[in-house]
């Protein structure tokens, strides 16, 4: 019976089979035995994936809410024709029709306006009134019933204020066919009558919840404006000749559009432009959400490391039985893989739920900073699922790599006692690499941003710098151990439990270094976010303090969007400005135009000259003249203009440069005389005297008014009175507007607070796991300690002080990481991505709180772990 059996496979089973055997026999059973740890690991990974996916989905739903209405109703357009000035004369439609000749092009003329709908609880939401030709639209829709199904021939379609809404509007707001509801449009209240519901159709995109479809002439009548269009969407019929027809139509229409001074593009071009506009915002959110996953990776690494230590004797036995290092490594990687799959799947479900909660907050931010958007329902596509799975599994495999290598390095049982501990964490002690990364990190900060087609900027150097600085600093953290050990000794005096803990830190193991590195990353990133938010808040508060000097502010509707196209008609604002209580007004009329595909606000201002009080801007490049009539005094041959900082960074144009603005009257060139700070928008803005914009754009309406009262103390009374007289207007006192700005600010950053808390909690769980690993590794020491009479409570206390020391190293390192990261975020990424210069503000209270919380939680977690593992037997595997 001796010798090798000829039936036995010489090389054993294949790679997958042997890894599978090890997984089923060992890892799976350990998972079942230690189900709490398994659940924690799956939970951590799931949380990371959920936050990442949730923010992504919420973000997507907020940004893609409303694309083009034909997409919801009749499918995607082939071409979109629009004007850089934002307005197309109606006559252009006929000329385009004529240019198309015999080509079967369907034209959808669209006029869009924003309106505000007040919910029952008083909250105001933004609606998009879309004026279109209903007769043309009835040719479309699934099932041949037109877009309205049975309601197409309803005589009410011709009534004034007749609108059609989508099913989601009906469900969200409880408004059904036949109901009437009031909305605020510009400075008036108008009543709309629901004459039809667009049924949801699985074959076409969902109609957004805040889309209200109205007949084109009806919209013109409603807003009392001269007939004009926002854009013209063109569609070609399907069929075998479609591609050929499309090419021919494109040629003819482009030529005609250019002759009419219009722009023709495909929906894809348009979507790319919209997407690029908010890329910086999305990146910021994605990176923030990536933080949770990064800290999750660290925890999984810690946990898998700890399992290697716990099962070291078992692995050694496997090695003695002939299992190869490669098979061990594969089995451990398989553990990471399975963990990644399970965690990601759970995370995807959680992320879907999270996205529903986040979408509102994100869309509010997008509204405030970028452009008016509406939210679509959160949808989980196969692509998103695949992305989340990929991301979760990759993270888990990255986290599992070092422990798998560590496991593979375990010697067979015969050599276990005499083997030198090699460990996969030796790289953590290589400080020259850390210093090199720090150097490269600093250098990367000077790499200029990548500029997208529509002017959006991606701070590639800034992000590279952040990663290098964080990783480099965390690798360097080991240098702090001796100092912290001395500090502990000095603090502990003759107390043996503290000096024992200090002795462990004086000669740190790879695990000590890894734990401290992970803690420093988590604490550092949390504190850096704190610095960023505090600096932002400080800058914003100072800015608002200087900017908001009027007693009250009046705008149309109450929609907070920066791109709100609502206006206050001349007779209305004149009535307000000339009321006896008013001492003076600052007037702003803004128009949205496009320059080289980049959206720019052109603001016509008329500042209060009746008083010593007027709008004072905060200057980045101070003009030669300041004061209410500075723009008038600076104008010479060219009209003088001031631009905001995002404009300056996007176009690279500042004081003494010239800029050409597209207007309905043709291109107008202005001279830039100053650059002012603007934290209200990421969109470039150019300010000039209103007399010029009135002439160029042909109206005397305004977008908003800043009111200076003769008796500022009576502002609340005045605001209330004006609100009653003009219910469609948004009237706010200075105090209320400041409060509202800060509220929106906090809402925008609420997600960061949650992420900071998650990062710290996960880091502390990692500390607990690391200590468990350290104690298991030192089981013989523990046995000796017990043999010489150390109590369980004393061992727990030793673990507690060791944990406190570790946390202190991580904390000090984390503070350094946060300072470096804070610098990158504030001085590199923010100016490059958003065009905002922030004043650096160090939130001392946050740092103190973070320090106390981390040390306290670290101490408690460590004591519990110490108590739990104090009774380890040296001759038993765990």
């Amino acid at each position: 019976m001796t010798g090798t059996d000829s039936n036995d496979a010489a090389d054993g089973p294949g790679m997958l089979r042997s890894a599978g055997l090890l997984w089923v026999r060992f890892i799976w059973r350990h998972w079942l035995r230690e189900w709490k740890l398994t659940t924690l690991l799956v939970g951590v990974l799931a949380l990371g994936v959920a936050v990442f996916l949730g923010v992504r989905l919420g973000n997507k739903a907020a940004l893609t809410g409303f694309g083009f209405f034909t997409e919801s109703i009749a499918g995607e357009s082939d071409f979109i024709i629009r004007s850089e000035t934002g307005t197309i004369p109606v006559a252009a439609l006929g000329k385009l029709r004529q240019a198309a000749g015999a080509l079967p092009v369907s034209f959808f003329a669209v006029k869009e306006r924003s309106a505000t709908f007040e919910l029952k609880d008083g909250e105001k939401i933004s609606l998009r009134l879309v004026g279109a030709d209903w007769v043309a639209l009835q040719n479309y829709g699934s099932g041949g019933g037109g877009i309205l199904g049975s309601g197409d021939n309803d005589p009410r379609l011709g009534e004034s204020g007749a609108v059609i809404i989508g099913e989601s509007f009906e469900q969200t707001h409880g408004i059904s066919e036949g109901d009437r509801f009031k909305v605020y449009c510009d400075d008036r209240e108008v009543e709309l009558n629901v004459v039809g519901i667009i049924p949801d159709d699985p074959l076409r995109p969902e109609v957004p919840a805040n889309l209200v479809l109205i007949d084109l002439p009806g919209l013109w009548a409603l807003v009392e404006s001269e007939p004009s269009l926002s854009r013209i969407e063109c569609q070609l019929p399907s069929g075998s000749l479609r591609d050929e027809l499309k090419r021919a139509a494109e040629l003819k229409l482009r030529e005609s559009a250019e002759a009419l001074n219009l722009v023709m593009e495909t929906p894809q071009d348009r979507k790319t432009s919209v997407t690029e506009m908010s890329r910086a915002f999305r990146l910021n959110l994605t990176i923030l959400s990536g933080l949770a996953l990064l800290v999750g990776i660290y925890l999984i690494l810690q946990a898998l490391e700890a399992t290697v230590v716990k099962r070291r004797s078992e692995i050694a036995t496997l090695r003695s039985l002939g299992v190869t290092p490669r098979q061990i490594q594969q089995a451990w990687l398989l553990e990471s893989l399975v963990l990644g799959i399970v965690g990601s799947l759970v995370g995807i479900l959680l992320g879907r739920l999270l996205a529903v909660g986040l979408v509102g907050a994100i869309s509010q931010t997008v509204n405030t900073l970028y452009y008016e958007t509406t939210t679509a329902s959160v949808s989980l596509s196969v692509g998103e699922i695949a992305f989340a799975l990929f991301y979760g599994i990759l993270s888990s495999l990255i986290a599992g790599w070092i422990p798998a290598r560590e496991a593979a390095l375990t010697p067979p049982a015969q050599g276990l006692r005499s083997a030198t501990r090699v460990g996969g964490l030796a790289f953590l002690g290589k400080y020259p690499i850390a210093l090199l990364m720090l150097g490269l990190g600093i250098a990367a900060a000077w790499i200029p941003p990548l500029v997208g087609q529509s002017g959006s900027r991606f701070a590639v150097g800034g992000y590279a710098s952040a990663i290098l600085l964080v990783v480099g600093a965390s690798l360097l953290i080991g240098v702090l151990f001796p100092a912290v050990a001395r500090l502990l000794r000095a603090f502990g005096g003759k107390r043996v439990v503290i000096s024992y803990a200090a002795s462990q830190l004086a000669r740190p193991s790879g695990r000590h270094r890894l734990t401290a590195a992970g803690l420093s990353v988590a604490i550092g990133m949390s504190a850096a976010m704190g610095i960023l938010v505090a600096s932002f808040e400080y800058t914003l508060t100072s800015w608002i303090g200087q900017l908001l000097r009027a007693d009250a502010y009046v705008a149309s509707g109450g929609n907070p969007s920066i791109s709100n196209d609502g206006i206050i008609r001349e007779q209305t604002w004149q009535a307000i400005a000339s009321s006896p209580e008013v001492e003076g007004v600052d007037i702003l009329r803004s128009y949205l135009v496009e320059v080289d595909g980049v959206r720019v606000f052109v603001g016509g201002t008329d500042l209060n000259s009746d008083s010593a009080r007027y709008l004072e801007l905060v200057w980045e490049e101070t003009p030669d003249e300041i004061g209410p009539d500075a723009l008038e005094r600076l104008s010479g041959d060219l009209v003088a203009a001031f631009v905001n900082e995002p404009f300056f960074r996007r176009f690279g144009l500042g004081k003494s440069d010239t800029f050409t603005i597209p207007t309905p009257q043709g291109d107008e060139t202005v001279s830039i005389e100053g650059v002012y700070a603007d934290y209200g928008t990421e969109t470039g803005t150019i300010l000039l005297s209103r007399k010029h914009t009135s002439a160029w754009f042909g109206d005397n309406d305004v977008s908003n008014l800043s009111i200076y009262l003769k008796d500022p103390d009576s502002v609340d009374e005045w605001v209330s009175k004006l609100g009653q007289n003009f219910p469609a207007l948004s009237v706010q006192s200075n105090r209320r507007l400041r409060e509202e700005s800060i509220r929106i600010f906090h809402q925008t950053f609420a997600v960061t607070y949650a992420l900071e808390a998650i990062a710290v909690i996960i880091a502390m769980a990692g500390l607990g796991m690391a200590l468990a690993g350290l104690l298991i590794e030192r089981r013989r020491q523990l046995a000796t300690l017990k043999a010489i009479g150390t109590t369980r409570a004393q061992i727990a206390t030793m673990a507690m002080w060791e944990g406190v020391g570790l946390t202190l190293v991580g904390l000090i390192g984390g503070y350094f990481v946060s300072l470096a990261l804070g610098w990158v975020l504030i001085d590199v990424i923010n100016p490059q991505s958003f065009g905002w210069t922030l004043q650096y503000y160090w939130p001392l209270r946050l740092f103190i709180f973070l320090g106390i919380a981390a040390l306290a939680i670290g101490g408690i977690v460590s004591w519990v772990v110490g108590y739990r593992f104090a009774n380890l037997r040296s001759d038993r595997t765990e």
Partner: protein
Amino acid sequence: MKVLQVSNLTKTYGEMPVLKGVSLALEEGERVALMGPSGSGKSTLLNCVGGIDRPDEGQIQVGGDDLGGLGEEALCRLRRDRVTTVFQFFHLLPTLSVAENVAFPLQLKGVSGAELQDRVDQAITEVSLKHRIDAMPDELSGGEMQRVAIARALVGRPSLILADEPTGNLDSQTGETILDLMESLSDQHRIAMLLVTHSPSVARICTRTLLLRDGSLDSAA
């Protein structure tokens, strides 16, 4: 027929010579006790023979194959198929039952189905643990654990079993029973055994006793 041939083995750790020109040979079915004080080099010699450690000089041949010419993977196969080990602290895999512990080395080789079942049953029957086949390691006594370890070492049909203090963690009565079992299995399957021990009682089942002192084989008892 020689199962093991060790010639002029030398091993040094740092400045300290641990083995100084050790030579020994084991015939098929032969049992040899290796004794010596702590630090004499017994474990190092065992590790070299098991392919865990590599000597600085000298040659180790198992069944005619020179271990010095084998790579890491081949050494793993050697431990799996031809040279198995019984430990003082048993080293059972805690998550596996008795049958699974015994079956594991065969499964690593790709043995499955009825053959696996038969061989595991046979090995467990030979160590008289048929009634404990589904028990987990933490439910076994020390003697039972060592029986499982012996069955696991036996099931791969090795030509040589290395035993590192096989009775060192057992009471004397259980230790004697285990030695009887090893003797009987060695005779029955013609398996050679090299037993490292401090206990003179182990020598009872061995045909020769080697004394290792300061890295050299001193004399045969």
